C-alpha cells in the first residue's frame, strides 16, 4: 500500500518509467504516460495510445514472424523443420532473463527509494518473465525431442531455466500472500534482489557440473545461422520484444491500479473510522482483527 511507505506523501510520486529498458520506444512512451499530471479522465482500462501502437506493431511483426519463420526461411540441414522452434525459443529465453533482470533492478531500487512504482515494476518483471519461462521450456523440450531424442536432458541451460522457473514461482507465491502490503513488498524485494545472483550461481554450478561429470554430453547443435534464417531469428526478437514491452506496460499499470485501489480503500476507511468516532456508540464498535 502506498500510504505505508515511511517516506513521502501517500500519493507517492508517479511511477518511474514502466518497462524501463524493455524497448526503446516503449520505455519513453510508458514513462510519459506515467508522468502526465493527473488531469482529465483516464480510460477504464490499461491501454493507452502508446500501447495500442505497440500492440499493433507486435501483431504485425508476429505475422511477419509467421511468414519468415514458417514459410520463407529454409529448413536446417541437420535439424530440419524443428529449427523453426528456435525463432520463438531463443528470443523468449532472452526476454525471460530480461524480465528477471528487471525484477532484481526494481527490487533494489525499491529497497533504496521506497517509491511504489519500483515495487510494481518488480512484480511486473517477474510475472512476465514467468510467462516467457513457460514458453522457453515448452519450445525447448519440443525442440529437444526430435533433435536429442528426449524431451528433457540435464543440459546446463535447460537446468538453469528450470531452477529459475522455480525461483520465479516462489517469488510470485510470496507476492500473492494476503498480508500487510508494505511488509510483503519488503520481503519480496529481498527475494527479488537475490534473483539474478541466484541465477548466476545456479548457472555456474550446473555448467560446471555437466562439464566435469559427463564428458559425453549430447552434442549441442549451434549452427552458424545466416541468410533467411538469421532474418527469421531477428524478426522473432523484434516480435517477442514488442510483446514483452506490451505485456510489461499493461501489467505494470495493473500493479499500479492495485496500489491505487488500496489507497482509495484507505481514504474511505479513514473517513468511516472518523465518522464512527464522531457519533459512534462504543457498544457497536467492532474490534479490528
Amino acid at each position, binding site marked *: 500500500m502506498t500510504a505505508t511507505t515511511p517516506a513521502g506523501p501517500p500519493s507517492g510520486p508517479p511511477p518511474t518509467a514502466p518497462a524501463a529498458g524493455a524497448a526503446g520506444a516503449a520505455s519513453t512512451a510508458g514513462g510519459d504516460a506515467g508522468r502526465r499530471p493527473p488531469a*482529465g479522465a483516464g480510460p477504464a482500462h490499461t491501454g*493507452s495510445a502508446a500501447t495500442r501502437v505497440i500492440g499493433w506493431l507486435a501483431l504485425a511483426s508476429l505475422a511477419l514472424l509467421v511468414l519468415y519463420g514458417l514459410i520463407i526461411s529454409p529448413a536446417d540441414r541437420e535439424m530440419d523443420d524443428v529449427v523453426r522452434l528456435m525463432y520463438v525459443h531463443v528470443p523468449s529465453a532472452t526476454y525471460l532473463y530480461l524480465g528477471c533482470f528487471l525484477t532484481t533492478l526494481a527490487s533494489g531500487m525499491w529497497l533504496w527509494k521506497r517509491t511504489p512504482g519500483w515495487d510494481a515494476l518488480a512484480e511486473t518483471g517477474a510475472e512476465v518473465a514467468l510467462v516467457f519461462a513457460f514458453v522457453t521450456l515448452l519450445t525447448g523440450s519440443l525442440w529437444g525431442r526430435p533433435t536429442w531424442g528426449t524431451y528433457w536432458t540435464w543440459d546446463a541451460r535447460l537446468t538453469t531455466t528450470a531452477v529459475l522457473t522455480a525461483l520465479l514461482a516462489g517469488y510470485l507465491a510470496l507476492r500473492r500472500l494476503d498480508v500487510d502490503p508494505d511488509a510483503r513488498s519488503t520481503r519480496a524485494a529481498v527475494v527479488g534482489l537475490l534473483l539474478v545472483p541466484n541465477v548466476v550461481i545456479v548457472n555456474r554450478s550446473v555448467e560446471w557440473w555437466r562439464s566435469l561429470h559427463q564428458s559425453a554430453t549430447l552434442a549441442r547443435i549451434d549452427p552458424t545461422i545466416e541468410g533467411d534464417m538469421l532474418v527469421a531469428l531477428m524478426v522473432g526478437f523484434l516480435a517477442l520484444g514488442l510483446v514483452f514491452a506490451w505485456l510489461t506496460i499493461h501489467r505494470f499499470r495493473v500493479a499500479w*491500479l492495485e496500489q491505487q485501489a488500496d489507497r482509495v480503500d484507505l481514504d474511505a476507511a479513514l473517513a468511516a473510522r472518523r465518522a464512527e468516532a464522531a457519533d459512534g456508540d462504543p457498544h457497536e464498535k467492532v474490534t479490528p482483527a
Partner: protein
Amino acid sequence: MIALTHAGYLAAGWLGTAALVGGYALVVLRRGRRLSRHVPTEERRWS
C-alpha cells in the same frame, strides 16, 4: 513421415506459445478493466 512429426512438434510449440502469451495478455487486460472501476480517473495517468 518424419517431416510430419516435425510439423506436429512445430505446431505444438507455436500454438502453445500463442496460447500462453495470448492467454496471459487477456488475463492482464481483464484485470486492468476490473481494477479500473475501483480507481478514480485522475489516478489512471495514461490515455
